């Protein structure tokens, strides 16, 4: 856990630093008598900064033995990355492809990649998902989604 604690403390250190610098330069911190818009971001950021430095030192000095590996299985990273990339892809392609097509592709890719299923099952699940999403959100809830270059 030592390595993870160091990464975590560095992340919070960065966040604290960002809030302190930003509120100092772009916001009015004010005074305790008249706290401004930057009061909480500044002092909160300062507190986080202090805590993260202390935690970083504590983690660096600790003698904790590294525990389990980051991914529990050999190909875990593939599945996790596939999902993150697919989510990004869905958001990027929503407008050009339209809701139905992008949902079809998204579900299809994930069903085939996460724990691979047969092509027939993949196709059926992807098609039903695209149809279900259209029925629920577009037809039933009447929410307008991008139509994409194919017009649906």
């Amino acid at each position, binding site marked *: *856990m030592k390595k*993870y*604690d160091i990464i*975590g403390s560095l992340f*919070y250190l960065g*966040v604290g630093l960002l*809030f302190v610098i*930003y509120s100092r330069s772009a*916001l*009015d911190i004010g*005074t*305790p*008598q*008249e*706290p*401004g*818009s*930057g*009061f*909480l*971001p500044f002092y*909160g*950021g300062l*507190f*986080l900064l202090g*805590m*993260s430095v202390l*935690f970083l030192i*504590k983690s660096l000095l600790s003698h904790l033995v590294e525990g389990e590996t980051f*991914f*529990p*299985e050999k190909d*875990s990273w593939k*599945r*996790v990355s596939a*999902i*993150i990339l697919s*989510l*990004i892809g*869905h*958001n990027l392609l*929503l*407008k050009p492809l339209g*809701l139905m097509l992008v*949902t079809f592709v*998204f*579900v299809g890719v*994930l*069903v085939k990649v*996460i*724990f691979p*299923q047969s092509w027939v*099952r993949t196709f059926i*699940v992807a098609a039903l*998902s695209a149809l279900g*999403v259209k029925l629920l*959100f577009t037809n039933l*809830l009447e929410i*307008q*989604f991008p139509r994409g270059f194919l017009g649906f």
Partner: protein
Amino acid sequence: MDAFDLMIQGLQIALQPMNLLFCFLGVLMGTLVGVLPGLGPTAAIALLLPISFNIPPVSTIIMLTGIYYGAMYGGSTTSILLNIPGEAGSVITCIDGHEMAKKGRAGPALGIAAIGSFIAGTIGVLGIMLVAPPMAKFALAFGPPQYFSLMLMGIVIIIYMSRGSVFKDMMTAVFGLLLGTIGMDTISGTQRLTFGVLELADGIGFIPAVMGLFGVAEILINVEKVMVKTLVTEKVKNLLPTLKDFKESFWPIIRGTFLGFFIGVLPGPAPVISTYSSYALEKRISKTPKKFGTGHIVGVAGPEAANNAATSGAMIPLFTLGIPANSVIAVLLGAFMIHGLQPGPMFIFKYPDVFWATIASMYVGNAMLLVLNLPLIPLWVQVLKVPYPILFPLILVFCLVGVYSLNFSQLEVWLMIGFGVLGYFMRKFKFEMAPLILALVLGPMMESNLRLSLLISHGDPLVFLKQPISAVFIVVSTLLIIAAMIPGIQKRRAKLREVIEEEKE
């Protein structure tokens, strides 16, 4: 008008066909997410928030509350049949419940879990009726200093109760508070950390954050491992426990109910803590403690009653103080706010229809769960056969489309993905999620109460100690933080965690 008359009025609203339907949908979905390992009530409520915009507020709250307590019923099914807790609150049920299933007594185990939950739910609703109105009246005297101190204490208790490091949880809570400051400052109108992005003026959307942290992150964690499902029994017979089972379980159910209810009122993962406490209590007072772990029905009855009563207890701080006791209730608080309802001391008096209808619906929902759940157990067994490779992409589609449909904003989808990745790493690095989500929800309220307190007192930081109620909250918070940092207590907490982990295994 007394509580009984108001309850009757609430019951009339809850029994309207539309509300009955949403109550049914809520408990059904709750049971479903409880049954399915890897998807909890927090994620389920978050997933349904976008579509709840089209539903009247009372029906929405009835449905979302139903998901919470319905999940407690469903969680026991997976624990007993699969030895995988469908819900964190059902972890302890695995120990004796699964042993009972292996001995061919899955039916009585499931039956007593449902009956115990129903009794606990009923007593829990009575408890809310009795405790919530006087507590709300007491809280009416609260001003900004009391509110700030109370919210601070809420976050500190969550930190104290969590299983992780106090340092990590404190940092996470402050991180949540800071995230809550992004957007337009409600007092001065200044834009903070929006970097010119108009969509951020209203702050970081609660729904994208919750759906990312609980929906996407949960799936990322779940797909890491290939889930192997080994159903102990597919045909569950003799659901009604025997008279001997009833006799053995009656007092554990009653004790579990009271224990769960009072633990539920306190901030923290109440359903989880209450089940461990109930199990430990029953084992301690039992004349035959060695029977625990071998398929003893008491080990199912007490904890299952406790986790259900805890869900009722957890509603009290929400309704009376506007303070969420745990992350599920925090998401529920978000749902209230989205629908223009502000829980707090005035809530019961300002929206008596919503309050009493929700309480009445909890009773109706518990009855529905008892009547429907036992016959539906074969159906839940079938649901457990749905392959995860199909389920996960569908949940993700729901997250993506649900968030986009809120404001037709792709930025909110990016935020959801970002929070999903953040939540994934937080889980991997053992950073608790509850302090973050609680601080994110309470952050804006805490900030305005802090600033108002300082303005009123002309910048005197001692204002929080000069008001007796506020002082009590501050003293309790300080003591808890000190206690959590004292090496001896830290060791005891670590030891307690180890015991819990051992019991789980």
